[in-house]
């Protein structure tokens, strides 16, 4: 199975990279885009009995290493 973990800063944490992207777009004349938040995507292959089993495994490694839950939030996609 394939798993994708999306990680980004929590909304209450300042995201200067997101702001920099946004102001760059504004400078390019793109005024209709707001509130950019950037993050990262980690993809992997996983061996699991079923989707639920995979989700549990990925949840575990995300909490323990991939994301820092002090500042980051995440979502998981299995296919």
């Amino acid at each position: 199975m394939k798993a994708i973990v999306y990680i980004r800063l929590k909304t209450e944490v300042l995201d200067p990279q997101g702001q920099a992207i946004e102001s760059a777009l504004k400078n390019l004349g793109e005024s209709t885009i707001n509130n950019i938040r950037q993050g990262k995507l980690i993809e992997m292959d996983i061996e699991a009995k079923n989707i639920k089993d995979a989700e549990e495994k990925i949840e575990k490694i995300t909490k323990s290493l991939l994301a820092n839950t002090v500042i980051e939030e995440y979502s998981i996609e299995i296919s």
Partner: protein
Amino acid sequence: MNVTIIRFPGTNCDLDTANAVKKVLGIEPKIISCKENKIPKSDLIIIPGGFSYGDYLRSGAIAAREPIMDDLELKGNQGVYIIGICNGFQILTERKLLPGSLLKNSSLKFISKNVELKITRNDTYFTSKYQTNEIVNIPIAHHDGNFFADQDTLDSIEANNQVAFRYLNPVNGSLNNIAGLYNKNLNILGLMPHPERAVDIRTGTKDGSRVFESALNFYST
């Protein structure tokens, strides 16, 4: 006094820190690899600066999950004194031995310069040789030194008087200008500035030596 320095792959301030300990305290510290199972009996454990595991994933994240960190956590809970400098501070927060987290500098750039710091209190193991509210000058060199904690955590850090050093002027976006802080029991210190680079007036400032001298002072008395 036994001083141990833990080296991770990508640590690059291990030798500087060992030299500073030698110069200031006249003690030969032990440098150990993070691949060892146990930390030898130590009065002070130092996690030096650098780019452990290349700062990949997040600064300090991979190092914080090395098996040797189980022993470090155990020793920290037993009251052994621990300092994490720069990347060492990041590792300690990733391990949750210290509260909060260190984000990218608000300028999004690496910053290398000498900064003025205010000593918050001088009644700890690490600061007895300073005066409270004394202003000292110590270099910083980091990309991810912007201290963040949620409001409750920040309130509790302040309420417990856990801040060790504050930047006199805003540098990297750190909340409350926090440059270094203690755990609740005051036996673990994390700081972004590099005291080991400030032990000889010929290199610009000697203000960092007293972190090490304070530790020795405690040990001797």
